[in-house]
C-alpha cells in the first residue's frame, strides 16, 4: 500500500461570500476505486473541478500531487494530458454524431488534417469491446439509451490514455441493470490497473464497489473509511455524511386510508411519433385518499409516460381510457384541466421540465397557479412574494430570499421549489416522478416526511421511483409496470425487492 497516484493537500477554495472547500485533503491509492460521499452542496463537485482544472491553478489554495509530482492545471486540457478524465453527470455527447465520432471528438484520428475513418472506426470498435458495448461504431449516439451513452463516455475516456477516471454520479440516471453493468465494468477496469474516483449518492453501490470512501461535509473532509477492512455499512456512511444518526432512512408513518380518489381505467397510450407502438397498454390503477402508492418499473416500462399522459395528455398519441376523480369521470385533455381538477405532476427531470432556471423562486412557485395571486389578469407580486416566502420557510428551502434564481440552488432545494409549485395548486392527487433523484440523504428524508404529511392531510399520492428500497420504505401499496402493462399490485407487507423485480420483468419476456 501507500502508493498514492493522487494526493490533494489542504485545498481551500473560496467564492465571493462562501468558503466552498476548507482545508480538504485526500489521497487516492493506485488501482483502487475511491468513493466520495457528501450531501449536496458539501463540496464534492467543487473538489473535482479543482482537480480537473475547471478552476485553474491560482484560484484555490493548497497543492495537488499526481504520480508523485506537483501539478498546476490551467484548464481541463492540462489535466487530460496528464491522464485525468472526468465524466460529468450530464453527459457531453453529440446526439447526431456517431459513436466513433463522439469518442474521438477533439482528439480525431487524422493524418495531415484529414480524418482516417478506418482507423477511427476500428479503434472505436476495440474500445467498445473493452467497455462491453455491443453496438456499431457508426451508430448515432442519439439512438442509444442513457446507460449505453454512459459507456460511450467511458470509452471516450479510455481513448485518452486515462490513468485516473472520475465519475460524477454515474448511475444517477441508470436503471438497475445498466448500473450493475457499469459497476461491473469499473471492477474490470480496476483489475486492469485503472484508478477511479466515483461520486455517488447511491450508498448501496458505494458499499458494494468502493475500496475507500472519503466523506465530505460542509466543505471539509470528515473522514476516510477503509471499506474492505472495516466492513463499512450504509448506515455508517450516512452517519458521517449528515453528522448525525438518522436512525431510520424513512420517517415512521401511520396511514389512514379513505375513499378512492383517483381511478384510471383501461388507459392505453401510443408513442407520439410512432403511433403503431403501444407504450401503455390498458392500465388500471386506483389511489385512495391518504394512500401512498408506488409505481415500480424498469426504464422504458412506461411509468413516466403513464403519468404524463394522464396529466393533460402531455405525452403520447391516440390515448384511450377513462380517468375518474372521486368516482366521477373527468376530462383531462389539457394540463390546465388536469390542474383544475386537482391533479399535480412533479417531473423526474426538474431542470428540463420542472423549473424556469433563469427565474427566481417566487415566479417558479406561482407558475402553475398564477391565477390565485392575480385578479382579472393582474398579478399581485407582493402577494406572490408572501406566498413564496411561506413555502421557503415551511419547505426549508435554503436560499437567502425568494428572489434567488432557481438555477443557483442545489438539487434538493430545486426539488423543494418544484414541490412547492405543485402544493400551491392545492392538489388532491400528487404524482411524484422520481422525487428524490440526485438529491442527498438529508433532503431525501425531508421529502419523505413531506410525502407522509401530504398523505395524512388526505391527499392521494402516487410515487414513481427506480429505487425499490425507497418504494418499500414509504408506500402503502406498489404497482409494478412492465413493457407498458401493469403486472401486479402488492401491499407493502407482501412486497420484497425480489418479488417486485420478478413482476417488473415478468411480461416483458412474454411480450418479446
Amino acid at each position, binding site marked *: 500500500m501507500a502508493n498514492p497516484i493522487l494526493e490533494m493537500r489542504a485545498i481551500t477554495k473560496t*467564492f*465571493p461570500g462562501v468558503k466552498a472547500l476548507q482545508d480538504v485533503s485526500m489521497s487516492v491509492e493506485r488501482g483502487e476505486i475511491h468513493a466520495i460521499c457528501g450531501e449536496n452542496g458539501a463540496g464534492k463537485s467543487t473538489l473535482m473541478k479543482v482537480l480537473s482544472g475547471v478552476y485553474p491553478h491560482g484560484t484555490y489554495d493548497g497543492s495537488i500531487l499526481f504520480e508523485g509530482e506537483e501539478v498546476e492545471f490551467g484548464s481541463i486540457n492540462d489535466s487530460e494530458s496528464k491522464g485525468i478524465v472526468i465524466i460529468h453527470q450530464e453527459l457531453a455527447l453529440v446526439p447526431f454524431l456517431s459513436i466513433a465520432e463522439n469518442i474521438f471528438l477533439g482528439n480525431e484520428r487524422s493524418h495531415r488534417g484529414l480524418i482516417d475513418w478506418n482507423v477511427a472506426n476500428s479503434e472505436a470498435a476495440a474500445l467498445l469491446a473493452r467497455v462491453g458495448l455491443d453496438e456499431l461504431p457508426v451508430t448515432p449516439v442519439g439512438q442509444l439509451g442513457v446507460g449505453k451513452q454512459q459507456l460511450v463516455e467511458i470509452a471516450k475516456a479510455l481513448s485518452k490514455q486515462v490513468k485516473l477516471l472520475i465519475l460524477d454520479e454515474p448511475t444517477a440516471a441508470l436503471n438497475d441493470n445498466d448500473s450493475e453493468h457499469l459497476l461491473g465494468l469499473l471492477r474490470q477496469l480496476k483489475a486492469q490497473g485503472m484508478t477511479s474516483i466515483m461520486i455517488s449518492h447511491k450508498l448501496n453501490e458505494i458499499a458494494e464497489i468502493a475500496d475507500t470512501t472519503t466523506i465530505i461535509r460542509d466543505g471539509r473532509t470528515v473522514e476516510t473509511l477503509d471499506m474492505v477492512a472495516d466492513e463499512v455499512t450504509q448506515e455508517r456512511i450516512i452517519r458521517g455524511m449528515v453528522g448525525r444518526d438518522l436512525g431510520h432512512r424513512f420517517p415512521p408513518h401511520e396511514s389512514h386510508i379513505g375513499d378512492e380518489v383517483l381511478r384510471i381505467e383501461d388507459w392505453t397510450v401510443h408513442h407520439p411519433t410512432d403511433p403503431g407502438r403501444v407504450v401503455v397498454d390498458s392500465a388500471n390503477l386506483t389511489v385512495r385518499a391518504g394512500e401512498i402508492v408506488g409505481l415500480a418499473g424498469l426504464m422504458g416500462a412506461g411509468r413516466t409516460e403513464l403519468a404524463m399522459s394522464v*396529466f*393533460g395528455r*402531455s405525452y403520447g398519441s391516440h390515448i384511450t381510457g377513462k380517468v375518474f376523480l372521486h368516482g366521477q369521470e373527468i376530462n383531462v385533455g*389539457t*394540463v*390546465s384541466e*388536469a*390542474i383544475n381538477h386537482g391533479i399535480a*405532476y412533479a*417531473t423526474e427531470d426538474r431542470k*428540463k*421540465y*420542472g*423549473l*424556469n*432556471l*433563469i*427565474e427566481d423562486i417566487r*415566479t417558479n412557485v406561482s*407558475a*402553475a397557479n*398564477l*391565477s390565485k395571486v*392575480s385578479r382579472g*389578469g*393582474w*398579478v399581485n*407580486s*407582493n*402577494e406572490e*412574494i*408572501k406566498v413564496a416566502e411561506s413555502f421557503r420557510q415551511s419547505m426549508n428551502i435554503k436560499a437567502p430570499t425568494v428572489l434567488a434564481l432557481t438555477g*443557483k440552488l442545489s438539487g434538493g432545494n430545486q426539488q423543494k421549489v418544484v414541490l412547492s*409549485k405543485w402544493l400551491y395548486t392545492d392538489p388532491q392527487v400528487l404524482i411524484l416522478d422520481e422525487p428524490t433523484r440526485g438529491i442527498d440523504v438529508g433532503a431525501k428524508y425531508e421529502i419523505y416526511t413531506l410525502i407522509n404529511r401530504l398523505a395524512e392531510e388526505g391527499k392521494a399520492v402516487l410515487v414513481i421511483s427506480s429505487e425499490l428500497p425507497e418504494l418499500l420504505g414509504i408506500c402503502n401499496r406498489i404497482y409494478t409496470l412492465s413493457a407498458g402493462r401493469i403486472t401486479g399490485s402488492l401491499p407493502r407487507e407482501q412486497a420484497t425487492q425480489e418479488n417486485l423485480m420478478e413482476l417488473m420483468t415478468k411480461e416483458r419476456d412474454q411480450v418479446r
Partner: protein
Amino acid sequence: MTAMAGLKDLFTRNLRQSGIYVAFVAIVGLFTILTDGVLLSPGNVTNIVLQYSYILILAIGMVIVIIGGHIDLSVGSVVALTGAVSAVVVIQRGLPWWVGVLAGLAVGLLVGMWQGFWVAYVGIPAFIVTLAGMLLFRGMTLQVLGNISLSPFPAEYQKIAGGFLNGFLGGQGIDVFTLLIGAIAVLGYAFSQYRARLGRIKYQQVVETMPIFVTKLVLVGLVGMAFTYQLSRSRGLPIVLIILGVLIIAYQIVTTKTVFGRHVYAIGGNLSAAQLSGVKVKHVNFWIFVNMGILSAVAGVVYSSRSNGAQPSAGEMFELDAIAACFIGGASTTGGVGRVTGAMVGGLIMAVMSNGMQLMGIDQSVQQMVKGLVLLLAVAFDIYNKRRAGAAR
C-alpha cells in the same frame, strides 16, 4: 446601510439593468461634446423623437417576441405593407384619414394572425415564418402600390407623425402646455413608485432607504423635466410622443404585471416547464405575434405619415434596428430575459448615435460600422456579465 453603500449595492446588483443606463448617459455626453451641444438643442431633441419613434414602437413588440424566445424578421415589410394599404385607401380612394389608419391596423392584425398561426399552431420556427413573411409582405407591398410611390397625404394624416400639441396655455417661447404635461407625467411616475413602495412595505419586504428612493425619483424627474423643457422651447409636444408614451406605459405594465406577461417570460425561460405548469403555450405564442403585427401597423402608419407617402422600399432594415435595440437593451438571445424599458433605452442609444453622427457629418458607411460594433459590444458585455454571475456561484 448608509446611503452611499446602498447606492453602490443598487448599481452592482443591477449591473445588467443599470449598465445600459450608464452607457446611455455616456453616449449622450460624448455626442453632446462632439456636436458642441447641438445634440441636446431643442430642435434636435424634437427631431430625435420624430425620427426614431417608429423604431421604438417596433422595439416594444419585438422585445416581447424575443422574451418569448422567438424573432421577427418581417416587421420592416409589414411597416411597408400597412403604410401602402393606408396610402391606397386615403390617397387613391380619397377616403378620410382615419379610415386609412384603421385599414393599416386591420392589415397588421391579419398579418399577426397569419404569422401567429404558423408559429403557434403549426409549430414552424418564427425565424422561418417571418423570413417568409419578409418576402411575402414586401411582395404584397409592391402589388398594392403597383411598383410606384404614393403621396401626398392630407394634412390630418401628416399630423400623426409631424404634428404638435402646443399653445393651449400660452407662454413666451416656452410652451406651458408641454411643460404641464411633462410635470403631470413626472408626478404620475413618482406617485406610482410611491404606491409600489407602500405596497412592498405593507408586505414587509425590503425597500430602498428613503434617501435613495428620493434621489432616484429626483434624478428621473430632472431628466424628464429637462427633456420636456427642451421640447417646449421648440415646437411643443409631438403627437407621436404621446402615442409612444402611452404604448410604453401600457406594455411596461403588460410585461411586468399581467398573467399574460408572466406567461411570455415562462415560455421563453423554459418552454417545457411552462407547458407542464398549465400555460397555454400556443395561445400565448399566437397573441405575441398578433401584438407584433398590430404594433408594426402602428409603426407603418407613423412612418408613412412622417414620409408623407408610401414607397415600395419603405421600412427596409427596420427589423434589424428593432432587434438591435432589444439586444442592446439587455434581452437574451435565448429568450426569457428582457424589458420594455431596456429595449427603449437600447433604441435611444442607437438613435442618439445615428443622430449624433449625422450632425457631425460622418459618412453613412462609418455610421453603419459603428452601429454594428456597438451591437456586438453590448451583447459581449451582457455575456461577460452572465459569466461573472455564473462564476460567483
